[in-house]
């Protein structure tokens, strides 16, 4: 590991990887990425890896849309020798309550205004897209064919390999333990494998973002919460889009390899760092998904696990600088959708750090918004 660098990025998840790559691509010479474990070992490697522009809030729509543009050419841009398995077969988002249906109509209107070609579908039209769907009790659905998902391990690895090729120093099993400031400026980073002096520090520590922020004296209004997920054995192709419902709190998708990945959002899950899993989840998940997609009834579960969401008060990430701590940047609090935003966030953060005008205005996503009382509202999260 180098003794000094132009920038140190903390976190080898997809967000840290994307930021390190973009800094190097934009001409920064010396970038060190510190990861306390191995790549994608935090939330990234545990996530559902869905990518959608069907959001209900303007920031999320703009960011996700730009990210999808980037995902479409990502493997090529990064010169990745394998497949990141980006699949665009859409998201089908189901409405089961009047309230939800009304909200979806508004969402689609906003999405159209921002250039997203989503559609409102009747239950019959939804069934045309997913013949296996049980539409009982469904009022309608929204659909957008540009949505989809990718493989989180390959995506992160593609960013990291490209960063390495550009001269980045990617250090696994290197934990940042302290950060030294001098006259309000980032000076040096202490790690389990030695010190690095650097004027720039990027906090992309995922669930540990608040711990890292504390090292520079910044309090983050975030909490972490467990989310459980499972994968089945591979089965014949039956599910093109990601199927999602906010009122039922479920998402379900079939990966290119045929296995089906699914999770539920349970507000009673423990907060903190517990990444265990429960049998109650298996039962709950199975009963919900078999009602929605009865063909899954005889399919076997091969693995269950959990990961952490890092939640902010308004379910939007916190991006950029913090007044009073020069050289400190953060890309944290993704509230369950940081995988899809990583490509665009990588570019935006590098633009900010290099003093350029960010290509999308994200000034409203700074930490200061909570003090100013400028909360965003995002009605469409699982």
């Amino acid at each position, binding site marked *: 590991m180098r003794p000094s660098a132009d920038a140190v990025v903390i976190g080898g998840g997809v967000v840290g990887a994307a930021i390190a790559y973009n800094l190097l691509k934009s001409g920064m010479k010396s970038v060190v990425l510190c990861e306390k474990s191995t790549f994608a070992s935090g939330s990234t490697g545990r996530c559902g890896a869905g990518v959608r522009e069907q959001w209900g809030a303007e920031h999320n729509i703009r960011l996700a849309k730009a990210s999808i543009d980037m995902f479409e050419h990502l493997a090529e841009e990064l010169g990745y020798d394998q497949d990141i398995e980006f699949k665009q077969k859409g998201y089908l988002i189901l409405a089961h309550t009047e309230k939800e249906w009304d909200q979806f109509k508004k969402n689609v209107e906003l999405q159209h205004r921002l250039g997203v070609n989503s559609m409102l579908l009747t239950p019959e039209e939804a069934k045309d897209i997913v013949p296996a769907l049980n539409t009982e009790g469904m009022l309608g659905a929204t659909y957008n064919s540009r949505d989809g998902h990718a493989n989180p391990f390959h995506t992160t690895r593609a960013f990291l390999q490209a960063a390495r090729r550009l001269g980045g120093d990617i250090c696994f099993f290197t934990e940042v333990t302290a950060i030294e400031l001098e006259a309000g400026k980032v000076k040096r980073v202490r790690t389990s494998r030695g010190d690095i002096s650097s004027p720039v520090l990027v906090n992309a520590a995922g669930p540990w973002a608040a711990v890292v922020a504390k090292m520079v004296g910044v309090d983050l209004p975030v909490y972490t919460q467990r989310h459980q997920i499972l994968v089945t054995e591979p089965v014949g192709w039956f599910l093109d889009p990601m199927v999602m419902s906010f009122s039922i709190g479920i998402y379900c998708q079939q990966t290119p390899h045929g296995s089906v990945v699914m999770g539920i959002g349970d507000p009673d899950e423990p907060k903190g760092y517990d990444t*265990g*899993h*429960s*049998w109650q989840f*298996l*039962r709950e998940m*199975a009963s919900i998904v078999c009602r929605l997609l009865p063909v899954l009834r005889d399919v076997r579960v091969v693995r*269950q696990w959990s990961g952490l969401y890092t939640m902010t008060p308004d379910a939007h990430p916190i991006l950029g600088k913090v007044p009073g701590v020069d050289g400190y940047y953060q890309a944290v609090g993704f509230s369950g959708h940081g995988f899809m935003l990583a490509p665009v966030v990588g570019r935006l953060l590098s633009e900010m750090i290099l003093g350029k005008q960010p290509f999308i205005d994200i000034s409203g996503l700074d930490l200061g918004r909570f003090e100013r009382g400028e909360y965003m509202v995002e009605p469409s999260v699982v």
Partner: protein
Amino acid sequence: MRKTELAVVGAGPAGISGALEAASYGVKVTLIDRGDRPGGQLVKQTHKFFGWHAKGAGTRGIVLAEQLARHIRENENVTFFGSTEALGYYSDKVLLLETPRGIEPLQCERLLVATGASEKMLLFPGNDLPGVYGAGAVQTLMNVYGVRPGRSVLMVGSGNIGLIVSYQLVQAGVRVAAVLEAMPVIGGYAVHASKIRRLGIPILTGHSIKEAYGDGQVEGAVIWKLDEKWNGIPGTEKDLKVDVICLATGLTPLGELLWQAGAQMEYVSELGGFVPLYDENMETTAKGVFVAGDASGVEEASTAMAEGKLAGLSAAWSLGRVPPEEFTRKREEIRNELYQLRAGPTGQKILRGLETLSKRAKKVTA
């Protein structure tokens, strides 16, 4: 939700002994097995036991299985769940079961994992063709269901299992083309090897399988000689027309449930692969989770029964059912029995493995 004091997963010699021991102290035990009857590997062992010094020497596995099954049936503290698979053990002490009736949670105060071992697979082209079997599967087919696996068999591995199954195949009217052994010497006991030789079956040491071929199923195998580094020597290939390839290349502990329950696992080659760290009471690093038998290191039935008994005793003791002096005395007795059982040459290897394991356990607690 159904409740039990001790759940025992695996109704082989280890699990049954553990269940009966705990039950003798009044502990309510639920014994679970994937198979439809208790007995584990014993139900297919038609041969007499070897290397069992203590009691029951000369007993056939199937006879012993029947005896044990009867003890289980007659014991009012033990409930047997057959055709039931344990899927996972969770932090709220629930063991999730897949039963013929569906998925059922079982609340248990203690868990004994006695899941045994599974056969090791060999890597070679064509190893996924129908007709490639583990030796245990061949034994089950013949001795439990009365089904011949095929007409002509290539046996890979000359340990006791490979030799005994070869003999049983011939008894069942199946041709055994050859027994291969990668090592320069035969692995199993000389008595078994001579029996095979007398039947005219060649035992080829320093040989392995290169590939299996066939259209949709095994039609033959190519074998070759190995050099001292275990690499195949080109030019020494021979083609054997067989429809079954039987792998008797050793066993590895079945520890999925232990991994999932959060027990710390260590790789110890003498014990067959990954095994849990455990203390002198057979308790793993996952509190309240005990282990016994091949799941804790591949050995044989008599040590499995002794370990099962020790685990069952400890589980009963940890539930407050065994007076301390009695516990200490009995534990010492069983440990002595285990020591004696491991006195032979095969036991030396196990003892080395256990020593490695206990060193690592000390490192963990230090």
